[in-house]
């Protein structure tokens, strides 16, 4: 036991001190916080300058109505648009376009709107401007044109409307999530939580699986493994390594969860400081999810890390290991692809079956738990199946590891690897 802890300690201490770990641990929260702040900033960012635009109206008679709709102001009080020129049914559309284009290129005009003939039919209008990436601009102008055209269509049918917005604005539907704990208003935060947690599991399972594989491979290629297993049993060495890397992963989780809760607590205040008036939905993570996350991570990690360790032991160099990774990586990637199936209907037979399969359950059952609490027996069954499978895979991996670390040379075939399991 003492030797086992020495292995765990060495693995933990050397990994936690690597630059890679420090960077990943510190940079990922900083980057995601930065990304969060940046996206709030970008989403609420508006032009602070009046746009000078022209309207080229081939249908005729829309310019006034559109200009009237575009009378909203910027946050700094200036008007958002100024219609500096309107061209009603030009004799030559081609010449008119050419002239407006020249003005845009010269900078005296920020953009021009082109309405085709018969806009009341189902035709598209065009807005020509240098910067087409501004989605709020597209929305504002789109609304203005639609309102004018719809007003015209109605008046053509004898209905006269003074202010169309008052008539056609949509009725909002509030989604309310029902759980046993009560009802909470849904603004998409349940899905965001579910996806973020499942993504986290997906990334860390692969990342720490590969860390374990590299660690095994390093000891094999530097040949120190022969000295080590003259002092400890291969099983002690493998178990110590897997537990040591798990401790590293938990350290990282702890740092991330702490910084995420800080962000949750102060994120709203941060957003408010950046843009007064904006609000973000608070993420509500049920306690069951918080308990399931470490349980499924740990069990999933044991399952996959031991597979990765066996691969590291069977390979003799980094290239071989890369090529042999597929059996371990594929189920993780498949769980990721099946996100959609589960999110669409978490209680369909398909979803239930998939989330009970041990190789998928770490990610998929956690996803189900965070979207909608499944019956407890389903959670218990998935954990039981996962534990049994993990034990079996750890056993097989340890037997492969024991033989593999002493085998050098060409990449072994699957048949050879399976034969190693039977060696005494």
């Amino acid at each position: 036991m003492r030797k086992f802890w020495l292995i765990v300690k060495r693995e933990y201490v050397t990994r936690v001190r690597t630059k890679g770990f420090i960077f990943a641990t510190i940079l990922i929260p900083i980057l995601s916080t930065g990304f969060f702040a940046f996206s709030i900033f970008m989403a609420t960012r508006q032009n602070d300058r009046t746009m000078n635009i022209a309207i080229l109206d081939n249908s005729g008679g829309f310019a006034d109505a559109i200009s009237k709709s575009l009378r909203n102001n910027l946050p700094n009080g200036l008007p958002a648009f100024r219609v500096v020129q309107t061209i009603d049914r030009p004799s030559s559309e081609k010449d008119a376009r050419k002239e407006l284009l020249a003005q845009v290129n010269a900078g005296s005009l920020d953009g021009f709107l082109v309405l085709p003939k018969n806009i009341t039919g189902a035709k598209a209008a065009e807005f020509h401007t240098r910067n087409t990436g501004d989605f709020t601009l597209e929305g504002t102008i789109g609304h203005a044109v639609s309102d004018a055209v719809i007003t015209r269509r109605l008046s053509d049918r004898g209905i006269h409307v003074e202010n169309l917005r008052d008539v056609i604005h949509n009725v909002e539907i509030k989604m309310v999530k029902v759980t046993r704990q009560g009802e909470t208003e849904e603004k998409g935060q349940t899905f965001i939580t579910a996806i973020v947690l499942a993504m986290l599991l997906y990334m860390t399972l692969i990342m720490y699986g590969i860390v374990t594989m590299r660690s095994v491979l390093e000891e094999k290629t530097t040949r120190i493994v022969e000295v080590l297993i003259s002092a400890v049993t291969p099983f002690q060495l493998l178990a110590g390594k897997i537990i040591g890397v798990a401790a590293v992963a938990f350290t990282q989780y702890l740092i991330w969860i702490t910084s995420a809760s800080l962000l949750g607590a102060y994120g709203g205040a941060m957003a408010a400081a950046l843009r007064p008036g904006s609000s973000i939905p608070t993420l509500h993570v049920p306690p069951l999810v918080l308990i399931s996350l470490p349980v499924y991570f740990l069990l999933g990690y044991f399952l996959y890390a031991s597979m990765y360790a066996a691969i590291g032991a069977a390979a003799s160099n980094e290239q071989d290991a890369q090529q042999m990774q597929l059996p371990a990586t594929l189920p993780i990637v498949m769980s990721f692809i099946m996100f959609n199936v589960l999110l669409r209907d978490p209680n369909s037979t398909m979803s239930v079956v998939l989330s009970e399969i041990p190789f998928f359950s770490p990610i998929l059952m956690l996803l189900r738990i965070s979207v909608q609490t499944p019956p407890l027996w389903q959670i218990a069954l998935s954990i039981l199946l996962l534990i049994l499978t993990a034990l079996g895979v750890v056993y097989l991996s340890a037997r492969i590891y024991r033989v593999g670390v002493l085998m050098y040379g060409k990449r072994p075939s699957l048949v050879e690897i399976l034969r190693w399991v039977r060696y005494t």
Partner: protein
Amino acid sequence: MDAVLVDRVTKSYDSVTAVNDLSFAIKQGAVFGLLGPNGAGKTTTLRMMMRILVPDTGNIRILGEPLTDKTQDLIGYLPEERGLYQRMEIGKILVFLGALKGLTEKEAGRRTGAWLERFELTKWTKKKLIDLSKGMQQKVQFIAAVIHQPPLLILDEPFTGLDPVNAILVKDIMLELRAQGATIILSTHRMEQVEMMCDSICLIHHGRNVLHGDLRAIKKSYGKNTLRIECSGDGNFLNQSGLVENVNHFGEVTEAKLKPGADPQEILKAAVRQGVRINRFELVEPPLNDIFIEKVGGARA
């Protein structure tokens, strides 16, 4: 009590039998040469002693005890393929490996300091292994094998990569450990090293014991059938005499194996007749190299 007892051990991998009904014993305090051509089964045998591999049949005892966790700590091992953690400080590597072999970390730290000083590596203590020269890495690896002062030391080609000064240092430490009661197993292809250091040997071929016992006794059993000559002039008289089986020229020294019953006096006469100047003319026991080639080459043919 024997330091090591290997009793009718067999080990196979799939269709290959690496070790075949092998038996030998090593006396406590001996320097024992484990010899054999490449692929003879030496490494498999050593690994079974260290419990890295399990024999299919047969029995191994270390200092009278069957193999357990405890016997593992009694062995120090320098593998032929050297290697330690590349990116770990050498001081920490040695403390870790010492602790794995049963020392407390404090004691391992104390001994690491003493050994690094003896090998003049003290100022490198906090350097990573990768920053050291090949020769220095070899020294670190040797320390790793002896740090827990094992009663049984297994050294596979201990002198490769060492300059003559460090080779002498390593040899002196081996003799010191032996004087303190340690048993040393030396696995090497360098027969002159075996002749200088070992008191007993075992020669393995195709996983079988083909020759073992006290080295002096083995050589004596071959008798003084070899001529060692230093001469200036044409050395052809040896072949022309028709009295030798084969001739080995080493440059300065020439060795020739006499045919059974041949009289060395006749060869000396032939040399004098041809006007060759003889500086040395000695009748000796066959070198271990020749015994090795005879045993292994003969078995192959």
